[in-house]
């Protein structure tokens, strides 16, 4: 199975870009063999720069932690571990002001796994039809349940000012709700996965997404352009990621990471050069100052993640069989997507 992918982002009409995203390295075939290819998207919120900080910290911690997955660990376990690490990281950056959503999807051969907190969406695009696989953790769900139970009028539920507010997000004291797939969902060649922040699907309803033209990258750009064409004066940040089981893999060149270690080594090389050029006095001075970066860099890197174990995730909704059904709130009427292999033909 080959993976095709794309990403596009726009700030909309906002002051800052509070969405963040990232992919694992598709060229790392050894890692991909057991961990698959992962895409993650986070939509931050909060005053000052907390939204930006939260979403970036979440994506970074999530990817870094997922990258530590061993072959023995299952994908759902690794996703949960990565989510907990992201929660930990976000709590550190935002204290109690702010947080972020997070949705991540993993394609491993023909298997799809995902995990989600908040209201960013994961859509399956099969034979041109879109189905949302995750549920939004927003107050509207509770309000609508109250309407069904007769405890609230429809009008009151619709007009509640907190209707769109998040009931679960990274950075909250407790992760109230986490949705994840426990067992993989089967995907076929031609199936596409879209990860999107609400800036996309609140501007264009999923039923009105433009028809696809071009490859995954072009489709992401097309979707962002379509959302911008709505010309909402209050357009939110938009991020769209696409992940696809494809005949043709996206060609990618991977840039080496610019790590702290590497920077430190650079400094050491420079220091060594200075040692050669300068006299003994200069050498003394450099040796006094040289250990400092080493000492600072050594403690406190990584590994803070184990504090949040799974027992701290209260209401985990195990989507044991996450195939889209009519029970989910898809924007599509026909429940024809159920047999996983049906959309295998060429579009």
């Amino acid at each position: 199975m080959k993976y095709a992918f794309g990403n596009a982002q726009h700030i909309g009409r906002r002051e800052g870009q509070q969405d963040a995203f990232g992919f694992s390295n598709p060229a790392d075939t050894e890692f991909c063999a057991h961990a698959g290819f992962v895409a993650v998207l986070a939509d931050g919120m909060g005053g000052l720069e907390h939204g930006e900080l939260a979403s970036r910290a979440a994506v970074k911690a999530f990817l870094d932690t997922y990258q530590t997955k061993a072959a023995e660990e299952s994908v759902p376990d690794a996703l949960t571990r990565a989510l907990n690490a992201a929660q930990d990281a976000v709590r550190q950056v935002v204290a109690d002001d702010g947080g972020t959503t997070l949705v991540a999807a993993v394609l491993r051969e023909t298997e799809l796994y995902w995990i989600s907190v908040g209201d960013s969406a994961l859509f399956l695009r099969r034979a041109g039809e879109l189905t949302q696989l995750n549920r939004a953790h927003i107050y509207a769900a509770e309000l609508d349940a109250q309407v069904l139970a007769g405890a609230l009028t429809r009008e009151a539920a619709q007009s509640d000012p907190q209707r769109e507010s998040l009931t679960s997000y990274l950075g909250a004291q407790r992760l109230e709700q986490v949705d994840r797939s426990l067992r993989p969902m089967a995907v076929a060649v031609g199936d596409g996965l879209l990860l999107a922040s609400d800036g996309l699907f609140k501007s264009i309803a999923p039923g009105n997404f433009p028809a696809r033209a071009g490859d995954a990258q072009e489709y992401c750009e097309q979707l962002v352009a379509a959302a911008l064409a709505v010309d909402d004066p209050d357009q939110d940040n938009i991020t769209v990621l696409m992940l696809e089981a494809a005949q043709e893999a996206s060609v990618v060149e991977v840039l080496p990471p610019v790590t702290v270690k590497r920077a430190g080594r650079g400094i050491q090389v420079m220091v060594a050069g200075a040692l050669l050029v300068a006299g003994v006095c200069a050498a003394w001075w450099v040796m006094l100052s040289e250990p400092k970066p080493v000492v600072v860099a050594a403690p406190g890197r990584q590994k803070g993640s184990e504090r949040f174990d799974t027992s701290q995730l209260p209401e985990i909704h195990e989507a044991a069989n996450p195939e889209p059904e009519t029970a989910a709130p898809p924007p599509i009427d026909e429940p024809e997507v159920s047999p996983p292999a049906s959309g295998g033909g060429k579009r």
Partner: protein
Amino acid sequence: MIRCADGHFYDPAKHHACPWCPKPSEAAPLIPGGKTVPLRPAAPDPPLAGQAAMAMPSTPTPVGGKTVPLMRGSGKVEPVVGWLVCIEGPDRGQDFRLHAAKNFVGRSPAMDVSIPGDESVSRDRHAVVTFEPKRGSFWLAPGEASGLVYCNGEVVHSPMEIRAGDVMEVGQSQLVLVAFVREGFRWDA
């Protein structure tokens, strides 16, 4: 496509560097390893026009389209001063809480006393029940809507003081006043 170190993809023909990575100045607060990052600038940046009030919203409600967390029990609870209990009409058995100052009565969910089941009640401001905290008295007045208000069977033309046990009538609904703030109890005491 090129994958940058942060896991973004971009087309090198269109961009010379990753367009999705935050500019170095923006990313700076994230870099220090393990160190606690200063969350709030000591002196906040001068607010951009119209942004001052939004920076730290105490209630996250009106910020249009922004992603905000749910504030459960947010906003101060307005202390209850009494209730109207529906004893006749489509919502018979329902109680409505009253708070200090004016309580607007109508069918709309935005009303303080919202009687959704009674179609003969005006949508907005059919009547006004006022609690006056200084003396601790309740008052009934007609609203701006066309419907009439009755108190103990008499039509109400101008504000009149009402007491616990008085029955007001709007549309087909009869509501009896139950006072919580009464002799011997006050919220501010």
